[in-house]
């Protein structure tokens, strides 16, 4: 098994208008995991994604898929795009057909599968994303969250190995966010997909991601598990990002208010454990004092 299914080595990319979007970016996407790419607006996340899928070709540097450098020939790109699917931020610019079914089939039809196979895959993708009941609806009648699911289904129908999502939670309300993130988690585990998520929604990362890259001005500036990355608040602030709110609270309590935690926490459940443990130890030491006093 190859550990990194996708790798970018030292990518540089400059747009026609002179904007340098990538400046020596290197990262690896672990097979079968969920990787987050965290960065502010304009950090270059979208450019990176378009490079992973061969839509943009880096000026220097190389992208490797399963250990092999990308083949930018017509055929090579066709194979790559079958395996690396991108779900874009704005579902409206991704859904174009009259009906949900038709839209989801778009990619599958383009890889010249026979009708039976296309139908099978589309039905499966609709099931996986929980939108089977929307099958015959016109796409413009859907809610925002439903549109995003249709967009995801359209990529899943191509049966990719890597699923790349640009800001999958943007524009969704809180319930929508957790639903879509749980859905991605499920799909990832069920199909053994590798998932890459670009986001600036810091609070979701500790909940749903295995590995995190922090991107700034076209480069990776921090990387590691969410715990490792959020253990470096200084580094995050330097690139205009912040800790998850829970992480921030725990940090302040520890540093300024004399709570002697022996760990950090970024999710509600982690923080809860930390505070509970701390409370227990306090209670114990109080008991200890009591016992000590009594004994004497």
């Amino acid at each position, binding site marked *: 098994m190859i550990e990194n299914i996708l790798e970018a080595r030292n990518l540089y990319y400059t747009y026609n208008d002179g904007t340098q979007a990538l400046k020596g970016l290197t990262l690896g996407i672990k097979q079968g995991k969920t990787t987050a790419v965290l960065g502010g607006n304009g950090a270059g996340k979208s450019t990176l994604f378009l490079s992973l899928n061969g839509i943009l070709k880096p000026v220097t540097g190389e992208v490797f898929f399963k250990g092999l450098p990308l083949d930018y020939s017509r055929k090579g790109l066709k194979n790559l795009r079958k395996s690396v699917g991108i779900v874009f931020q704005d579902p409206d610019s991704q859904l174009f057909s*009259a009906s949900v079914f038709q839209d989801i089939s778009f990619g599958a039809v383009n890889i010249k599968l026979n009708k039976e196979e296309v139908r099978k895959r589309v039905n499966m993708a609709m099931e996986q994303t929980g939108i089977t009941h929307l099958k015959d609806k*016109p*796409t*413009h009648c859907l809610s925002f969250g439903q549109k995003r699911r249709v967009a995801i289904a359209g990529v899943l129908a191509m049966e990719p190995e890597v699923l790349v999502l640009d800001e999958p939670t943007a524009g969704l309300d809180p319930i929508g966010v957790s639903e879509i993130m749980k859905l991605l988690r499920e799909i990832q585990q069920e199909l053994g997909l590798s998932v890459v998520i670009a986001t600036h929604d810091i609070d979701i990362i500790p909940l749903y991601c295995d590995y995190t890259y922090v991107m700034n001005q076209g480069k990776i500036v921090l990387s590691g598990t969410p715990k490792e990355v959020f253990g470096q608040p200084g580094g995050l602030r330097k690139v205009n990002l912040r800790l998850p709110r829970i992480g921030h609270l725990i940090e302040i309590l520890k540093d300024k208010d004399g709570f002697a935690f022996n760990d950090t926490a970024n999710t509600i459940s982690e923080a809860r454990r930390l505070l509970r443990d701390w409370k227990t130890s306090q209670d114990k030491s109080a008991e200890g004092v009591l016992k000590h006093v009594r004994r004497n």
Partner: protein
Amino acid sequence: MLKKRIWILSLIVMFTLLPRTAFAMHIMEGFLPPGWCISWGVLTIPFIILGLFSIQKTVNEHPRTKMLLAMAGAFVFVLSALKLPSVTGSCSHLTGIGLGTILFGPTAMTVLGLIVLLFQALLLAHGGIATLGANTFSMAVVGPILAFATYKIIKQAKGPQGLAVFLAAALGDLMTYVMTSIQLALAFPAETGGFMASLAKFMGIFAVTQIPLAISEGILTVLVFNAIAAYGKDELQDLKILSKEA
């Protein structure tokens, strides 16, 4: 030997350049003599004034149509900037005349066409300011009128919608190039044979690319129109406000 080489060379030049002529079919800046620039400009003005009056009237009745027309203009511009895939692998462009005319009506298209042509000259260096009158006449007056007439006649004859759209777009496109060839031939009559010989030359050359292009434009316009009709029914209904006036 030399002759043969020239023959081959010119063939190579033709076939490398021709597939890219769709945009270049706007007569470039400085190509027409001043007299012709002015004449075509003067000939175009009444149509523009007519178009402006018609737009003003519609806007007075339905204030929303001003924004709609502006969107339509931008849409036609963007449409004409899209690359049209072709068999040879090279790219050409749509004119959008047929689609624009069917959706927004010929009078609106005249004014929108003028604006789009001006922006194409200023932003993309396709066409020119001195040749704006001539280009407007062929692309925004003759093209739309023919496209609209074709569309209406076939509709009136209860012909199929698809055929009406196809022919309107294809003929609108083709007529534009015929008109451009006429304009060029009038300005540059051949030494021997005069206007007719020159027209034959220009039409002959552009026919090579323009006939397949007109067919592509026709097919694509049908596809686009069907897609719009499939899930833009309300929009199409509202647009009748614009196109009924013509």
